């Protein structure tokens, strides 16, 4: 029973991070039909920013997290402006390949300037200290990951539901052409979408490296791929889908490792993709998949 609870805590943590990252992928895909391979690298950016803020600038952890979101968000906006916007209207694969190139660019420049050496991201002791509680080994960071993620998801949902720009984001993901005719400054909406997505990935990177302790230039790569799987499971383009997909994947992965024969636990990543294939066989559009609207 305790073991089950412990695994649940782990799954909630992992799932929260996948969900935060998957939301950004799904928002950008919804509007531009772009599978943004550089999205996971925004996690890396966030983690390095927090590292610098905590160790070099000695900022409090809250400011470090905020700074990570701001810097990652700003970089997301700049990348859209410089790399994706000029390609708008060309074939979708052109943007996809560009996002792969940007991902390598970020990874390589981080390797050259910061070295590939993993660095410890040390959170303040009061967050990181593990203690025993009701037989569980937990740290305040576990609760922080869950609460902060849920808070951010609630805020994002309110933003998308009630603000004019949130409504415009949903309109764009349905039919961009017509959204122009509503007097919406579509380029600004797309910039906001990239900014919000990257900021969420940035904070997810801080939480990830805060939990697992290390940052290196490839930190965001694997969780970025997993988040992509989560987004597809939920139904790409659907924000609630990304959230559910993230947690589903977190649970599936943790419980696979916890309950599969030890010899198989090395296959956790492969298992994730098998799970994806299985779900897509049953529901090709994902759990919350939306049929394609007409996009002129």
């Amino acid at each position: 029973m305790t073991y089950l609870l412990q695994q649940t805590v782990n799954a909630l943590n992992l799932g929260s991070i996948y969900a935060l990252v998957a939301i950004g992928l799904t928002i950008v895909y919804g509007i531009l039909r772009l599978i943004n391979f550089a999205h996971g690298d925004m996690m890396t950016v966030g983690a390095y920013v927090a590292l610098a803020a905590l160790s070099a600038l000695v900022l409090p952890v809250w400011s470090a997290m905020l700074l990570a979101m701001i810097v990652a968000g700003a970089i997301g906006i700049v990348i859209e402006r410089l790399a994706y916007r000029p390609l708008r209207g060309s074939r979708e694969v052109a943007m996809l390949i560009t996002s792969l190139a940007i991902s390598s660019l970020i990874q390589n420049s981080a390797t050259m300037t910061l070295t590939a050496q993993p660095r410890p991201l040390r959170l303040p002791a009061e967050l990181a200290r593990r203690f025993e509680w009701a037989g569980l080994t937990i740290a305040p960071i576990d609760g922080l990951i869950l609460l902060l993620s849920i808070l951010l998801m609630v805020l994002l949902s309110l933003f998308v539901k009630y603000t004019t720009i949130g409504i415009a984001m949903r309109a764009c993901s349905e039919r961009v052409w017509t959204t122009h005719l509503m007097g919406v400054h579509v380029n600004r909406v797309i910039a906001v979408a990239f900014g919000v997505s990257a900021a969420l990935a940035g904070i997810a990177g801080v939480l990830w490296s805060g939990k697992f302790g290390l940052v290196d230039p490839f930190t965001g790569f694997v969780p970025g791929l997993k988040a992509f799987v989560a987004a597809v499971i939920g139904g790409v383009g659907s924000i609630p889908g990304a959230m559910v997909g993230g947690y589903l994947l977190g649970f599936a992965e943790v419980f696979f490792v916890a309950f599969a024969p030890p010899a198989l636990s090395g296959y956790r990543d492969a298992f994730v993709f098998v799970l994806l294939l299985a779900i897509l066989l049953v529901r090709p559009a994902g759990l919350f998949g939306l049929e394609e609207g007409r996009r002129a």
Partner: protein
Amino acid sequence: MLHIHDLHVAYGNVDALKGISLEVRAGEIVALIGSNGAGKTTTLSAISGLLRPKRGQILFEGVEITRLAPYEIVRRGLVQCPEGRQIFARLTVAENLRLAAGHRRDRSAVARDLERVLGLFPILGERQQQIAGLLSGGEQQMLALGRSIMSAPRLLLLDEPSLGLAPLVVERIFQVIADLRREGVTILLVEQNAWQALRLADRAYVIETGAITLSAPAPVLLEDPRVKAAYLGG
């Protein structure tokens, strides 16, 4: 109010408009009629800034708008109600209406326009919180027109508002168009339903394969043998 001069638009290397010139004066209803594929929607898309012309100018109230972004054009009061309604099916009725007024700062004017739209089309009021995709075709056209009103048009481009609708709904839509004109909105009405359009319009242009072939006061075109033969079913 709107002056189009020698407008050329191409899709890739296929010419869709080959030198269109037309004019809409303040307070008029001008009809643009032509058969399927003649270039009517292309003309409106170019006016709204969605397509970049190869050549030619578009002036709105004396100012060149040929290279402005679509949102800038809407914010000047040149609004388009697109072909096939194009409502946002996954947004609610209220969200569709709100989106179209999103750029307006005068909240009390927006509130008045909303009242007005709900007064014109009470069914939209009843269904405000419903997903727009659940509306019937006629209701969707009402929503599309209501959305245009929410953008505060001074010149309204209407692309085949009667397409695929039941006669009663068509009548209602045309009534509202006539009302809008009485309130000072200028209208450029694109229709395949030439008879309806010509009865309502002051003047009309006939477009064929990307060029204007006739232009005259609407009552004259209603009697024109060529128009009768081609667009009014003999």
